[in-house]
């Protein structure tokens, strides 16, 4: 996608050529660099804790519900795609919500004649993220209700029974809960921050049509963050739920 960047998206002319990107975008890249280190430390610790312990780990899919979270993962990836659509829309100057194309015969294939603008795709991105967090909260409540806590597995609960039957190893139950809630919790916190920030932008910038094909820095910058958060989730889903 080769959109011509307007002058405002470039650094001010009176400077030595720097990174070639405007300050907010470079700042976001640098910030994401530190985020990479944050999640690397989290994931690295998890790997050390899980594969360094001599005891067996809980088998996948016994405590955590893989199908529900797989759906949630799909939702988050969709949200990332919506963000790309939002970016492409405003880069083409499409500020509207939805509009129809009269030159195309209207049939059931909506995507042929209904054209989404920034408002539509941005809102869809937010909805995707918010639903993800909602499902995660539901998952937490469900897990805690059945005895799976950050400190381990409570006796006399549904999951406590699994420990008693030896299906879930008792020796690593504590660290299993600790790592699960900390890693997914921090990711959920990141998604929440993204949703809140996008809500800010939606009401203050997107709805009043402050963005145009000449200046859409906010969309691009938050988009970088959003794709990063999605990428991290794919790694987390793999190592925490699947293996």
């Amino acid at each position, binding site marked *: 996608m080769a959109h011509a960047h307007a002058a405002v998206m470039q650094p001010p002319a009176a400077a030595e050529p720097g990174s070639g990107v405007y300050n907010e975008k470079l700042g976001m890249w*640098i910030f994401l660099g530190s985020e990479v280190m944050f999640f690397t430390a989290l994931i690295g610790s998890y790997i050390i804790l899980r594969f360094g312990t001599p005891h067996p780990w809980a088998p996948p899919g016994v405590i955590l519900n893989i199908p529900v979270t797989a759906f949630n993962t799909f939702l988050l990836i969709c949200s990332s795609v919506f963000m790309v659509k939002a970016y492409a829309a405003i880069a083409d100057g499409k500020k509207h919500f939805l509009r129809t194309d009269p030159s195309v015969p209207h049939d059931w294939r909506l995507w042929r004649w209904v054209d989404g603008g920034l408002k539509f795709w941005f809102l869809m991105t937010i909805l995707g993220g918010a639903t993800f967090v909602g499902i995660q909260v539901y998952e937490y409540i469900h897990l805690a209700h059945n005895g799976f806590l950050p400190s381990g597995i409570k006796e006399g609960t549904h999951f406590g029974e699994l420990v008693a039957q030896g299906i879930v190893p008792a020796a*690593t139950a*504590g660290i299993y809960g*600790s790592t699960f809630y900390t890693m997914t919790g921090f990711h959920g916190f990141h998604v929440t921050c993204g949703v809140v920030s996008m809500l800010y932008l939606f009401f203050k910038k997107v709805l009043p049509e402050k963005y145009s094909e000449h200046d859409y820095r906010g969309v691009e910058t938050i988009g970088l963050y959003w794709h990063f958060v999605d990428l991290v989730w794919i790694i987390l889903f793999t190592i925490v739920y699947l293996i």
Partner: protein
Amino acid sequence: MATAVAEVKAEKASLGSTLWSWLTTTDHKRIGILYGVTAFVFFLIGGLEALIIRAQLAHSGNDLVSAETFNQLFTMHGTTMIFLAVMPLSAAFFNYIVPLQIGARDVAFPRLNAFSYWVFLFGGLLLNASFLFGAAPDGGWFGYPNLTSKQYSPGLNIDFWVIGLQVLGIASLAAGFNFVVTIINLRAPGMRMMRLPVFTWMTLVTQFLVITAFPVITVALVFLMFDRFFGTTFYSTAAGGDLLLWQHLFWLFGHPEVYILILPAMGIVSEVLPTFSRKPLFGYAVVVYSGLLIGVMGWGVWAHHMFAVGMGPIADSVFSATTMLIAIPTGVKIFNWLATMWGGQVQFRTPMLFALGFIAMFIIGGLSGVMHSSAAADLQQTDTYFVVAHIHYVLFGGAIQGIFAGIYYWWPKITGRLMNEKLGKWHFWLSFIGMNLAFFPMHFIGLLGMPRRIYTYSPELGLDTLNLVSTVGAFLIGISVLIFIYNVWWTRRHGEVAGNDPWRAATLEWTIPSPPPPYNFSVIPEVVSRLPRWSVTQMKAIPEVPPEPIHLPGGSYWPVVTAFGILVMAAGALLHSLWVVLLGGAVLVVGIYAWAFEPFEV
């Protein structure tokens, strides 16, 4: 960039001097001064703690302070000096000097810069507020669990430490993002990367270390906090956790942190030496690349802090080797500094004395560092006063002397007056003699078997005299700092007026008035060489009065409000009150919202 905000007539450009103007300032120079003053106060507090420690250890069997108080003192001394004194004193120079050296009017994100300062201030106050509750952190600045686990440290002490350090981390990270973007994107025309002054280069390397190292300690602290607050089991071996995980995470941060502390001082010295040798820095490119190399290699040596753990011969050998390797770029720098002076017209002004002191003391500290790199030798030295001697040679003899070199060097730029030379020399020599008296005997004290972090020792150890010498040295350093404070007070009234460039130095900050006007440069300079003021091809003169109106960003109170939200959240976490945390979170969210959408043009 659009300038929707009204432009300010340059001759009227002033920032006011009211308390409100300081609270809302986004001017990098003011924020630099705030950083400097605040960090210096913390430096005095940390120094006072050190003096009490030394007074307690002046002779065997002393009972000046209790064991509990002693634990709090050495923990807070280390934490304060590292996070509240050396780092923010360096940050004062980043803020004040870097935009001037690259020919910019401010940093890339002025309000984020103010936010960094306020978060730092609140974090520092929070840590020190622990004294008011009689619950100052007492687990050492390294905070190893399980000593710091709930079971063995049930009080508030460690909570203050865990939360305070996380708050301070936010400040460092925010500043890190800001300065990387500033140095990369805001350079004046012609200021190519390989024309950057070495101090700016070292700032850039330091900030990259900050933004990569601080997330790691944040994770370690989060694990510890969750263990203490929510019963997770990261550091509890009985429930599948791993005690060594903390040590690895902490030193993964901790060793880059060492270079975060020393690289800015190396940058300062690389500015001071050429100026007072009347010669360009010898091997500029090599000094820059060795700084980069130190930054990269600093990531591969962390486990040399853990030889006593018993990681096995292979890990020990690897980390020994990498540690020895890192002495190479450091040695390269030292030879470049010496070669800079070689054949120069060396002028022994106060900044130069401190820079020379830096080189000499850093060599001693560096040599004992190489001794530690041998795992076999290190096993004899671990947890003894030998290590204390080493870190004080590199951090006092190195970082602090480098920072004082910077203070004397840039004081005329910042205040417009030269500090008193005679008092400055008294300051230097007293602190130089004092530090050697205080820290050199510690090598022997340690090798003779005195462990560190014990509150007293028996007379049979036979170390009374050496300890007394060390204590006398520490108090000499204290006196030298008092002389410095008197010098500051004296200079305010009687200091010689500096003019633009009292040292006849080479870099861009000396082309403008002292103190610089709020807009720094009346016109954005066009840089034609690495040493703009020493080159045959002179850059265009910078006019006294700006030829056209200059846009100045206004102040904003949202950074301090947002930072306050973080303080409230931290206090709520300490009180274990979810409601207070949520209240702080609300302030934070509102603060960021208002900040993001207030009219503010850089």
